[in-house]
Every structure is written in C-alpha cells, then in structure tokens.
C-alpha cells in the first residue's frame, strides 16, 4: 500500500473514471468489464495489441460508440457521452492520427475549425490569430515559421503539435492522443512527447494510445494494458518494465506477481 500512497494523494477522485464497461459488436465482445482511471495532470499510456479494444474504449469515451453496460464518471459524477459534441462539452478532445487537419487551411484556420470567432457576420481573423498564437506560445510550439502557413507545408511533428494545440485550445481537461508519434522521425517524436509533458504540466489529463513502448515509458505516469477486451493491468508506470508490459499485451498475464488492477 505504501507505494501507491503518493498517487492517491495527488488525485483522490480521477477526472474520468470508467467502471465495468461492456461493448460488443454482434457476437464479438470488444470490451468486457473494463475499468479505467484517468487522473488530471497525469499521462496515462494505453497499451494493447491490435484488436485488444484500445480504439473501442477510446471511442466510448469520445462519444462515438455507446457502451452496452457500465458507467463513466466525469469529475465524480456519472455521465452519458452520446456524441463527440457531448464529449467536447465536458472537455474531452481526441486527436486522431492525421485525420484532424485540413491541408489547404493555415494553422489558425485549422485551430479554429468549427468554432470560428465571428464579428458582425464576418470572421474575426485578427482575434483568432492572436488566440492561436497565444496557445501555441504557451505550449512552446515555436518551430513553425508563421501561423499563417498552410498546414500542408508543415513537417509531421509540427502537424501533430498543431493538432494537439487545437485540442487544448478549448479548455480541454482530457486530451486523448491516438498514436501521436506513428510515422514521425526521432526529433519530431521528441517534439510531440515534450508537448505531451507540457500538457500534463498544465494540469490536463492525457491518454496516449501507442504501440511504441519507448514513447509510453518516456511520457506515461500510469500505464493501462488491454488484452482481448479486458483490462489486465493498470498501475503507475514505475510498477512496470518493458518486459512485463509486453507479456501483458501478448498473454494477458505476467509470470511474476500479478499487478493490482
């Protein structure tokens, strides 16, 4: 018990709490009795092999799928998230790999897409540009040459940074990143991971879904592992090593003493 005490002190009540979530598609049980805690100001790495249920779980939280059973608690209150709009109203933003940005629009236009500021019927470009610049500066996304350049001219890491900044801009309390470093080079990956750490430092709850255990171990404060739709392990990152995470991902259990779930 002594070793989990600090975590309990930091977050008595996790920002988002999932209890007993079930989801099946026809005869396929995609999630079964899944529990998950996402505390504020911490990065949770969600691991699992292909088909383990990572994206189904994410979509249940993001409002795209409706769970068949179980309950989601937001700031301690039970909530039903019926649509992506519901999710963003609560403060949940999901960044999907490479689906979030329109190449032909510039950074400001992308960051405000769907929530443009309007004055007297016309777009308030000056105000949007100022707000976008402030957000990017606060996250220290400073490598872009100009926030008026089309997203098509950005590198992969910069695009991912803009997508994350876009999610943060709306006072999000929980940001879900789906494979944020897939297809990125070493430096670009580092840029995104640093950004994830800054989000955490801003008090945001972050869930990172990743195949790359190096990335997970670098940023995650907590790690959760799904295996065939079941949550087989969930604890702070220091309770795992690479070997044990891989074993949980591939066999659902680990040879040594099982970690509390």
């Amino acid at each position: 018990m002594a070793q989990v005490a600090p975590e309990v002190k930091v977050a008595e009540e996790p920002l988002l709490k999932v209890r007993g979530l079930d989801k099946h598609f026809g005869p396929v049980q995609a999630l079964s009795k899944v529990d998950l805690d996402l505390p504020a100001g911490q990065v949770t790495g969600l691991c699992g092999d292909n088909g383990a249920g990572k994206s189904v779980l994410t979509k249940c939280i993001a409002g795209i799928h409706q769970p068949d059973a179980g309950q989601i608690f937001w700031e301690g209150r039970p909530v039903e998230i019926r649509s992506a709009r519901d999710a963003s109203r609560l403060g949940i933003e999901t960044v999907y790999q490479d689906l979030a940005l329109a190449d032909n629009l510039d950074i400001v236009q992308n960051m405000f897409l769907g929530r443009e500021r309007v004055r007297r019927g016309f777009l308030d470009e000056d105000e949007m540009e100022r707000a976008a610049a402030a957000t990017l500066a606060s996250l220290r996304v400073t490598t872009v040459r100009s926030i008026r350049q089309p997203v098509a001219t950005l590198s992969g890491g910069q695009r991912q940074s803009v997508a994350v900044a876009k999610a943060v801009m709306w006072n999000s309390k929980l940001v879900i990143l789906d494979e944020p470093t897939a297809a990125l080079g070493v430096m670009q990956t580092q840029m995104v991971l640093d950004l994830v750490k800054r989000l955490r430092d801003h008090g945001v709850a972050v869930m990172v879904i990743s195949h790359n255990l190096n990335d997970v171990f670098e940023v995650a404060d907590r790690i959760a592992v799904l295996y065939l739709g079941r949550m087989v392990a969930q604890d702070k990152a220091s309770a795992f090593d690479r070997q044990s995470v891989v074993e949980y991902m591939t066999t659902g259990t680990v040879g040594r003493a099982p970690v509390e779930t």
Partner: protein
Amino acid sequence: MEGPEQPPDPTAAPTAEPEMPPEVVAQSLGEYLRSWMVRARSGENRVLPVVAGLIMITVVFEIISPHHVFLSAGNLVNLFQQSAVFMVLAMAESFALLLGEIDLSVGYVAAVGGVIGVQLVQPATTNWPWWAAIIVALLACALIGALQGTLVARFKLPSFVVTLAGLLIFNGLMLLLLLLGPFSGYPSLSGRSTNLHVLYNLMWGNIDPVASWVAMAVIVAGLSFLMWRRDSRRRRSGLVAPPASVTVVKIAALAIVSVAVVAICNINRANIGVVEGVPWVIPIVLAVVGAWSLLLQRTRYGRYVYAIGGNAEAARRAGVDVAMVRTVAFVLCSFTAGIGGLLYASYLGGMSNNVNGGQLVLFAVAAAVIGGTSLFGGRGRMMDGLLGGLVIGGIYNGMYLLGLQVQWEFIVTGFVLLAAIAIDALSRREATRATA
C-alpha cells in the same frame, strides 16, 4: 504574448519552402516578389501563369489580327462581353470544384434560367416586370441546385452522375420551356417593352461615361481605404501582414486596372453614331465576384467550403454540418449559373434551342481550372473564374478576328486547358511531396 513570427525550425522539411505564401514570410517588397516567383516556378502560384497567358494572347492576336484590331476599344469591350458568360459560369462551377465535386449541369441550368427570364417578360404572354422575371428565374435555378445538392450531399450519390443526369434533364426542360408561348421556340428580347429592354441591356446597355468615372472612383477609393486600414491594423498589432510597400503596390494595381477599364470603355466604339460608357455587364460580373469572394473568404460558410474540399473528415470531426454546406454550395452554384444564363440570354438577344449547355459547362470548368481553381478541391478563388473566363473569351475573340472557324477555337482552348490541368496536378504533387 509572443508575436507570430518564430525562428525557423531546423528540422522543418526544406521542400516545404516553395509553397509558403509570400504574404506569410516576406518582410519587404523584394522578398515578396522573390518568394512569389519561387512559388510560380513550382506551380504553386496560380495567378502568374494565367496572367502570362493573357499577355501572350494579347500580344499574339494584336500582331496577327487584321489591322491590329485586337486592342481597339471596341474589340476589348466586345471581348469582355463575350467572356462574361464564361466568367460567371466558371464562378458557379467553383462552388462545386472547391468541394472536390463537379457540376456538369451548369450550362443547361443557366439555359433554363435564361429561358424563364426571357419568357416571363414577353409582352404577348405573361408580361412580367423585369425584376420579377429575374427573381423567379434565379429562384428556379436555386431550387434545381437544392435538388441536385440534396441528392449528392444527403443521398451520397456521386455528383458526376447526378449532374450528368441533370445535364440531360435540364436540356429537355429548356426545350419544353422554349415551346411555351407563340414564339415557335425562339422567344426574343427585341421589342418595345421596358422589361425586354432591361434584360437586353444587362449585356448591351452602357453606363453614362461621367457616371462610370464617378462610380469607379468611389469604388476604388473605398476598396483602397479598406485594404490599407486592414493591413496597417494587422501590422500594428503584430499579426501576419504584407509590408506596407506591398499594400501600396496592390492599391496602385487596382487603381491602374480600374482607370484603364473605364477609359477604354468610355472611348466611342461605334462606327456610326455614339456608343460609349462602361457596359452594365462589367459591374454585374464584379458584383458577383465581390459577393462570392466575401462569402468564401470572410464567412464561416466559406471557411467550411474550403475545409471540406481539403479534408471532409476533419471538417466533420470539427462539428461542421458537411451535408448542409455541400447542399448550399450546389444551390449557390445553380443560382450563379442562373445569373450567367440571364447574361447569356441578353448576349444572344433571346433564347433558342441552339443553346449548347453541354459546351458551356465544359468552358465553365475550363475557365475555372485555367484561372487556377483545383479540380481536386479546396483550392481556388472567384477571381480565378474571372481570369480564366478572360483567357477563353480572348481565344474565342482572337480566332474570330482571324476568321478562323470554331473548330480551331475548340482545339486551342483544349490545349490551354491541358496546360492548366498539368499545372494543377504538378502543384498538387509538390504539395504531397512536401508533407510526405
């Protein structure tokens, strides 16, 4: 707060450079021009090729046309009148192209609008006032757009097929409408009624020379003031803005072009008697350009059109009502086609079953693409339709002056279109390479 200008990223892909819009990076007039040229060479800048094309057309036809008549005032005004229909139809088509869709029906939708307008003002039958006829013609076109747009956006039918069916259906509808009334298929705009005159004058009426000067001065002064105020406000607050010298050059260019157009139009272009002044069709076309540019560049709706053309999935995830934006785009497309149709009816002095809407739509798409609008969606402006329409009108006009038959016009226009689409595809390849 930090300014938007940030130190360059050493890890950024260098191939991205040529695509940077000049207004974003340039600090001086020289840099602005250089970055503009770089973009032009990589196929990213779409204005330069079409302006170069226009200059080439002008020089070639001026040299080889009999008596060097191409640049005469009469011919230049005539050229604009011939181009006006292509321009407006290209702008109509732009709404579909920006979404990455296509509307093959604009030619016959325009024809239907034109026929409705001409039929309703016939003194022998309905004798409606001109304004009511115009409103009903445009509303009918908008309704057509709403139907086609609903099929594309809500029922997810491919726009190519929906509007191909539309092309046939509205060809038939045009012929049916032509048969109404005692005109044996050729309702005309010649006659004594004011309503006939107004429709005829959309294309052929002229504004008094003095009034032309005054109106031009007011419009140019107003636009210059707005441009200067906007750019200097953005410079002051440290937002991305072109340097002051670039703003001055833009305003000067606007003034020079405007003065030249009015001066040319105010030269007497009749062989006998007096025909002078700016034809009404010029302010009509400019009003369409202005209104639709404002809608596309400065409103939420316009932003969503570009977003859907660039990445429909991203727009959907951002909460944009994609089906609604698509449907409305088809309404605007057909509505604008209706304006083009009324201008065409005016140009022809009536409507007849010789109107070839299939050819009109091909010229509309060609004009938009030649002007720089991408066939792949998300890129293009209303000005592109205007410039591309001028290119097509210029070729048409020049070939006519040379006494060449229509077949040569088709062949030359076809090659120009091929060149334009090659530039479009090239710049698209550059863009994908930069992000890869």
